[in-house]
């Protein structure tokens, strides 16, 4: 097959075109983050990174960064433990496939709609509070309580996205040769030792994929939070992505909105960078 040197570029041209078309708004937005730019007050005006200074010095900005990191950390750790655990249970017996189809369902709903469903159930007179009361517990404020709102959206995230970890985790577990586990069992390793020294290292490549996807998606979570609490009560669940929406669309302050988004974008990139590096090291070893 003869290769004309321009052929690959020609084939990739539409893809490159979209890439450039998306890079343009990205670069424009990046520039705005260094400007004072309110839509209702005329043109952008360069302000030497004042937006970033105020993001990192005001309570509002720091709080949003804290919420972003807390949310992502809790969600990723919880979903990895639950997801890998459930994947191991599903792979244990013969009834795994039936359970899997049912367990995976939440992942396939639009997150917005899943969040709305939970919103309905978690109201003051909702079915969850009724269940709590009839089990002898107390009613909780859930999404409308300043202290419980963040944990409630985290619960919804876990409900939706644990199946993602289960699906990928199952695939990873199946790729571990059974002889390896048997061999270490013969050598006297108990189930816990077996998990730490055989299963976990073999699972590493797929865990990297899982943590990258879930880490980035939970850092930039918007759908669940905005449809249930709109960042409230007050700012209890306002992460950087929601803050950017409130700044940009509600207050028409595009300069501040873009500054939050650039910080969020850097956080997302940090994750993918470190994890890709870890994976490359893994591949070399």
């Amino acid at each position, binding site marked *: 097959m003869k290769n004309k040197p321009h052929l690959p570029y020609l084939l990739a041209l539409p893809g490159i075109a979209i890439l450039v078309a998306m890079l343009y708004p990205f670069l424009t937005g990046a520039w705005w983050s260094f400007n004072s730019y309110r839509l209702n007050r005329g043109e952008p005006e360069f302000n030497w990174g004042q937006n970033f200074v105020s993001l990192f010095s005001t309570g509002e900005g720091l709080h949003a960064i804290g919420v972003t990191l807390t949310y992502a950390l809790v969600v990723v750790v919880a979903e990895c433990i639950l997801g890998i655990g459930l994947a191991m249970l599903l792979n244990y017996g013969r009834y795994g496939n039936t359970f899997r189809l049912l367990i995976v369902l939440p992942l396939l709903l639009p997150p*917005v709609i899943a969040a709305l469903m939970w919103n309905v159930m978690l109201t003051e007179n909702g079915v969850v509070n009724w269940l709590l009361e009839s089990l002898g517990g107390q009613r909780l404020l859930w999404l409308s309580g300043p202290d419980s709102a963040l944990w409630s959206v985290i619960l919804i995230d876990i409900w939706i996205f644990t199946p993602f970890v289960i699906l990928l985790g199952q695939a990873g577990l199946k790729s571990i040769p059974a002889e390896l586990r048997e061999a270490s069992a013969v050598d006297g390793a108990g189930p816990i030792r077996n998990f730490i020294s055989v299963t976990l290292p073999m699972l590493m490549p797929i865990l990297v994929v899982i943590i990258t996807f879930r880490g980035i998606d939970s850092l930039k979570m918007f759908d669940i939070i905005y449809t249930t609490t709109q960042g409230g009560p007050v700012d209890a669940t306002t992460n950087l992505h929601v803050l950017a929406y409130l700044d940009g669309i509600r207050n028409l302050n595009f300069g501040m909105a873009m500054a939050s988004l650039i910080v969020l974008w850097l956080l997302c990139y940090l994750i993918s960078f470190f994890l890709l590096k870890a994976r490359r090291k893994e591949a070399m070893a």
Partner: protein
Amino acid sequence: MSTTLEQTALPQSTTRAHVSASQRRRRKKNVKHGVVIALLSGWTVFALAPIVWIFMMSLKTPEDIISNPPKFFFLPTLANYAQVLSGPEFLTPFLNSLIVTLGSLVLTLFIGLPTAYALARFTFKGRESIAFGILSLRFAPELLIILPLYLIFQQSNLNDTYLGLILAYQLVTLPMLVWMLRSFIEDLPPELEEAVAVDGGTRWTAFRHVLFRLIAPGLGASLMLSFIWAWNSYTLPLVLSGRNTQVITTGIQQYISFQSIAWGPMAAATVISLIPGILFALLSLRWVVDGLTAGTVKG
């Protein structure tokens, strides 16, 4: 006698061939199975309960919905579905969602397939930068691109149009399609196409007759996955769509107004919007997992 029988049936259990020991082991295994099933059932109940509850709610009358304590047994009614399916509040966004989603898929296919092929089968300058650039669109916060795009669209009159939404939706559909297709193609040996070339075929015939058929199932799964992502997308239409192009994810919130929430119709609309995802699950779950894990899991 029974011990020897058991030993032949279960060759793993070699040592300590006492009757009591093997029985104990079997009992332990049964307990273990029981615990596994119990744990899985527990999570299944947690995963399904909200869906079942909303489904029940969609069959209730307004009085049954707000009754306290909640009703688990009631006379089902289809009134909510009738209301949802007869008015434009649900059908228009539903139709808009279909138009925008299918439009984005067609565009993504025409852009993504040649791009993925070029990235998989050629070595050229800037290849990895292009691949990484396209994938990184998936990892950027949506608003980072959507907010500036909103102003650009405003100037070019693309706000609240199907074309504008379809272009913006490439952000959701294109990166993963290119990524998955690239790994599907890379998994196939290039000798397949070279054989066609030896027989006098062109690159195009090789692609059409050999490669395309081999990647077709994977392509189907990738398209399905893109369909789900586009269908579920919320941030993009929230900013970029308006009265004319309201899609399902933003439209369903119309049932929640400041005065009251139309619980019944909302539940019915929710149940109807779950259908694409469930269809998808039945059709192609395995392929999707293969695509997402491509390159990381061998065997």
